[in-house]
């Protein structure tokens, strides 16, 4: 009787195990999702006071790294564009499929007087 119960539980565990594997498989299966992300970095003078440690640059680099990893893992393709801005647009990287490291390394602080979004 006990063996019969164990057998039933084993069958259920295998069934659910397969179910989980299928769901996980669906999650990691390459799909056709394409993502375009543009990062706008405020480089106006006010940020010298509000963000003296350039936290926003580090945050932007981390976001690029995160998206690169997460989207690649999901099998999605993505393009990235970057623009520094103050009262005008500064250095930019056009929207495209750039190596993550290239874009991350290009993120630098510039100096503008004013801020016009």
């Amino acid at each position: 009787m006990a063996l019969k119960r164990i057998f039933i539980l084993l069958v259920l565990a295998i069934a659910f195990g397969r179910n989980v594997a299928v769901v996980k498989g669906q999650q990691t299966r390459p799909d056709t999702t394409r993502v375009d992300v543009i990062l706008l970095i405020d480089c106006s003078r006010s940020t010298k006071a509000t963000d003296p440690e350039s936290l926003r640059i580090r945050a932007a680099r981390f976001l690029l790294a995160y998206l690169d990893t997460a989207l690649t893992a999901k099998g999605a393709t993505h393009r990235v564009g970057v623009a520094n801005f103050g009262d005008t647009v500064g250095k930019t990287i056009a929207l495209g499929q750039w190596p993550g490291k290239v874009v991350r390394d290009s993120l630098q602080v510039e100096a503008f007087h004013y801020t016009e979004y």
Partner: protein
Amino acid sequence: MEFALKELHNKNSFDAGNRRAVVLFTDGKPRLPASEFFGEEKQRYFRGGPIAGGEANYPLARIAHELQDSAVKLYMIAVGDDPKDAELWKTLLPSYHYHPINRTTDLSELYRGLFFDLLDIGITLQKSRVDSLPRFVDTSQNLRQQLCSWIGWLILALLIAGMLLVGYNKVVKPIKKIRKTRALAFASPASPDQWPALGKYKKTLERLQDLNSRGKHRLVKLFTYLIGIDAIDRDLIRWQTYRGVAIPQEHRKLDEFIKLIMSPTFDNQELTREIRTFVDSTKEERELWWNLVAFLARQPREQLKRVAFEAFDDAMSSADANEQSELLTELTYYGAAKGFKERWSDFISKT
């Protein structure tokens, strides 16, 4: 932001149906050279009202709406922002797209939520009551996965628990019981109180002997190890010794025979002689005789079987038909019928 809008248009992002996001990293503080930029002027800036002293309107609200109307998700990562500015920004984008940060350690969770939101993977955002940091809670598509995963784990845990329970009931508990019985049977000094425990333990030893005779040596070795027996034979001798002391008076004579049998240098002739003298007229003694003969017949050693059969032959030759039938019935009862039936058939055919 106009740059972002143009770039998305120029790179055919809209036509290709891509998922789109614009992420602003800023302190959220607009500052223009032309005028004092506070109060009403700032309100107009965020509402898209007319520029002071000019005819055109401030473009921010228009672009922000155009982006979002075109399914571009507009996120803001605000560093060192002013709460008043934050309120103005939240009129332009959903409040759950506005993320104030003051340390990089919050970013991992924030970006996780942003990633799921960007791909519409069933995420809602709520404020943590504890630290008022934004927290992301999975709501839809991950639910099934999590549920299945939990049920799978639960069943696995139940399965392991069931196996442990069965293992405990089928192996550990009986072994513990046998160990306890053995300890009771071999308690020192031996006394008649040990008789029931000795009887029970004998059955265990007989089962082990039976397994051994069927060639299941490894299983026997495992059981003897678990029970704590050095060797079955040694335990059998010990059993005989204890039984010799603990045995009730009416079984003492039988015990003498068993001691004789277990002796490594026992003599067939002597044993046969003893068995002959043992057969008497009282019912109790006859029962002991049958018991002894049946016991001998069950032993794997051929010598003992021969003694049993000779004793049987002796008894049969001196018995009448009724007694023969009674003998065989009793031996059947004592579990040694097979060999004796054949022997009885031979006996009948000879006579």
